[in-house]
């Protein structure tokens, strides 16, 4: 009986792990003229960490940031003209982060300009365990999904590195 419990536990853990991943529309790349698909599960993050130099400021910051992360997924698409992706493509992702443990903390949408900008965080017991960014423009669509414990200060600092100006992000602030 013990082995049955062991197998069940493994299946449960596998399911939980799979459930942490957000499913992104699969056919966007075929509609895009350019796409970036970065999938970095835990083992790849650990490998990358060994090659990130502690003496270079950006790499040292990156090394610190990914130290406890479980995964990073980036799906970025560029299209040759507007209308190559639909609201349904974005909604299929949004639907997966609607309700606890996910909360939308920042969001702006302009139907006129065809732009959407949203940040969701996943938190359990006051610990942030996931981040989703949706950034949509008429000819560009990007999803960033980060799994694992994230310090809001590090998120704000992230936008201060790699040539990007700092983002003023107040932890726990909700904005619709």
């Amino acid at each position, binding site marked *: 009986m013990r082995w049955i419990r062991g197998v069940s536990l493994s299946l449960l853990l596998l399911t939980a792990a799979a459930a942490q991943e957000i499913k992104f529309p699969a056919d966007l790349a075929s509609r895009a003229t350019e796409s*970036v*698909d970065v999938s970095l599960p835990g083992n790849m993050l650990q490998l990358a960490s060994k090659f990130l130099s502690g003496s*270079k400021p950006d790499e040292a910051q990156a090394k610190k940031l990914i130290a406890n992360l479980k995964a990073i997924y980036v799906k970025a698409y560029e299209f040759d003209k507007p209308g190559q992706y639909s609201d349904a493509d974005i909604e299929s992702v949004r639907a997966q982060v609607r309700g606890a443990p996910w909360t939308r903390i920042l969001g702006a949408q302009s139907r006129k300009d065809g732009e959407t900008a949203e940040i969701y965080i996943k938190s359990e017991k006051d610990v942030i365990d996931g981040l989703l960014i949706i950034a949509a423009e008429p000819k560009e669509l990007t999803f960033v999904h980060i799994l694992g414990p994230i310090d809001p200060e590090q998120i704000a600092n992230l936008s201060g590195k790699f*040539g990007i100006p700092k983002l003023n992000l107040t932890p726990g602030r909700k904005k619709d």
Partner: protein
Amino acid sequence: MVNVAAEAARQLDFTELLREHQGMVFSIAYHFLRDRAVSEEIAQEVFLQLYKTLPSLESPAHVLYWLRRATCNRSIDYVRHRRLLPKVNLDDAPELTAAAAPGDPMLSARLRKLVTSLPPKQRMMVVLRYQEDLDPEEIAHVLNVPVGTVKSQLQRSLAMLRDKIERTIGEMNL
């Protein structure tokens, strides 16, 4: 004793040259081939050849010219020998370095990809011009082609790159 001292002096010079120019040599190969593993092999071969050739080189400027020429020749020969175009799949090509400059990372990635699609000699001219900041006369000297050829091929490459960029993302005021 004299031989040991001379050998030690040669080692020291070589080590300094290696540290000073490793980025340049690797980058020329890498921006041309977009394959880190092959680029490292080529860069290693260039420096091993330098190690043997060093006594015959006359000055730091001569070494610099020699390194650029050797790297260009080996990179172009590799492509011709393999008769392949390097991989241009954006997903396959890790693009950023730690010292990220401002600007659109995807535009930079697309430009690198488009540069890789140029014919070998034109591609190397673009790399030497915009990575190494060489003027057409210097490029002509390194690649052993007429200056006029360098100028016309650079112009043609820029026109092609501008056309392809604008077709994919619209007018960029380039």
